[in-house]
């Protein structure tokens, strides 16, 4: 059985399309990532799947329940963590957890094993008000609250946005552990580097899915040659790279990445030569490792 099936779901706001014919499936017990920049339509998709919004077109099922017809069943069975911190800021950590456990008809003790790893870190602050926690702690608490009723499918909308890198890594480690409890997880993030933590990902832009694959296959099927280039004048470097035929170039960290189309093999020295002819010095050209971000940029055009 699939955890989530979305078929051609669309959503418009005031006539402007936010989600356009999006289809994907999430297998049971996998971490499925929706990767895309802000405004790509990730939150709308989450809200449709959690029955908070009605799709304008298409259909979707969560754990074989229809999101329109069986909304009540879905609400009983899923865990949802919205993008915005949505707990009670004036209640303490423990009170929040207790409240959500009760709302979901369970107790903290009953499913403590699920949240134990996370809650241990929160325990020293259990009498602190949620509003006074750090960003990472807030997200951990929100995850606990969304998990406390042992949901069949967990929806996490940008759980790591605004969280420091260390906490982000910890957060993903927790998701991996949850996966072992056979909880299917749908997670969205604007950070491309987090994509590799998912089992499968959908790259999404302007309401449409560009590609769905495992992160490894996505990188493997990149196809193009990819070089990383550095020179004394970064601005001029990017200008000059634009003039190289059959390539696409863009800034990438301290380097510039040059993606060479499949049919036009080229080697590093050719690029270096071209750059030096154009008056750039300290030229450094090497093969680059393909990342999800390169795949995303490649798919955009």
């Amino acid at each position, binding site marked *: 059985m699939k955890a989530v099936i979305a078929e051609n779901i669309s959503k418009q706001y005031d006539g402007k399309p936010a989600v356009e014919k999006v289809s994907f499936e999430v297998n049971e017990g996998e971490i499925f990532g929706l990767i895309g920049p802000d405004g790509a339509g990730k939150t709308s998709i989450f809200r449709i799947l959690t029955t908070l*919004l009605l799709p304008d077109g298409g259909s979707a099922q969560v754990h074989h329940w229809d999101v329109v017809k069986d909304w009540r069943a879905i609400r*009983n069975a899923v865990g949802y963590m919205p993008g915005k911190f949505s707990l*009670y800021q004036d209640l303490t950590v423990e009170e929040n957890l207790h*409240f959500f456990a009760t709302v979901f008809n369970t107790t903290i003790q009953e499913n403590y094993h699920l949240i134990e790893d996370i809650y241990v870190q929160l325990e020293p602050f259990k009498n602190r008000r949620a509003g006074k926690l750090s960003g990472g702690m807030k997200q951990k608490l929100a995850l606990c609250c969304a998990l406390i009723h042992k949901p069949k499918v967990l929806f996490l909308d940008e759980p790591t946005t605004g969280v420091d890198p260390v906490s982000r890594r910890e957060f993903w480690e927790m998701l991996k552990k949850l996966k072992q409890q056979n909880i299917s997880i749908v997670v969205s993030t604007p950070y491309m580097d987090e994509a590799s933590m998912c089992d499968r990902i959908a790259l999404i832009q302007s309401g449409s899915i560009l590609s769905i694959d495992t992160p490894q296959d996505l990188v493997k099927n990149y196809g193009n040659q990819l070089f990383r280039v550095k020179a004394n004048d970064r601005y001029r470097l990017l200008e000059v790279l634009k003039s190289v035929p059959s390539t696409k170039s863009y800034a990438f960290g301290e380097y510039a990445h040059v993606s060479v189309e499949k049919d036009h093999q080229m080697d590093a020295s050719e690029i270096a030569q071209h750059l030096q002819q154009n008056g750039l010095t300290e030229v450094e050209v090497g093969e680059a490792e393909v990342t999800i971000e390169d795949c995303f940029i490649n798919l955009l055009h």
Partner: protein
Amino acid sequence: MKRLLVFIKKEFTHVLRDKKTLLILFGMPIVQVLIFGFVLSNEVKNTDLLVIDQAQDRASKEIISKVQASEYFDIASVTFDVQDVEASFKKGKSKAALILPKDFEKNLMTKHVAQVQILADASDPNHATTIENYLTAIIRDYTNSLNASMPYTIIPEVRMLYNPQLKGAPNFVPGVMALILMLVCVMMTAISIVREKEMGTMEVLLVSPFKPIMVIVSKVVPYFILSMLNIVSILLLSVYVLGVPIKGNVLLLFGESALFISTCLSLGIFISIKTQTQQVAMLISLMGMLLPTVLFSGFMFPIENMPFPLRMISNIVPAKWFYIIVKDIMIKGLGFAAVWKESLILMGITVFFLGISIKNFKIRLA
């Protein structure tokens, strides 16, 4: 059931942790009752009076001493010149003037008709009217004492029923009750529900087994209880501090208050369903509820004096009916038979707003 209880407990925690809300909830009723009781009062006491005594005879002296003896007036000064009146009014030294012309006693004794003139500063018309009434009453009283022996006199005996001393308090206690309940129930309920939307917690609550309508119910219960506490504190203040007794049945009074609280809560729910931010909810509660309550409940401005369209509008203001009910029960000591019609109207308004709220309630976002 257990879920509902936990939810209600959570609401209480919200209220109790928010010092500002707490202050509004319990401080405001007390402050308002005291302000209305002691400061804002339309009673006329110790009004400064200028007396122009051109007669300087026995009759005029007797009238002056009678005026002086009443608690309503302080005689600012006694002069001879009418010119002084305007100067004194303009400087604010006196609010009224009593002019006793020359040959006052002579005219009274020989012609049996004598004139006095009362001048009042009518920049505050209500005040001026009251002063005039009091002064006329004192003079009538004096005339009656002279006429005692004469035949064919009609002596009107005026008695102010239910509030013989014409105190302001009996009038405003019901008004303040309506005002406070309107503020606490409508505004606080609306804000607390909208806050869940604004903070995003509503989104989480919707994706839970908790029935959305129960969110509303559990929001309403704490404010209902807090409002009943407020009623108790207002009534205690009015009985023991302001000396306004409860003449009617206390239980009936609480029952009617519970009904009015329900009306307010239904209005609060309606506002919360129609708005998305706390600010808008607050503005609508203030402008749409509080203002009409002050204007149209009849507690500040008599409805009878309003033009027809405004009188019509006043009929849809719940506070007007509650004001009538509380006045009837508390001050006149009447029973349910006297207020069933008003109670029915309040019930109707409550059912109406609950109905459209339930119809408009969204189980989804947007």
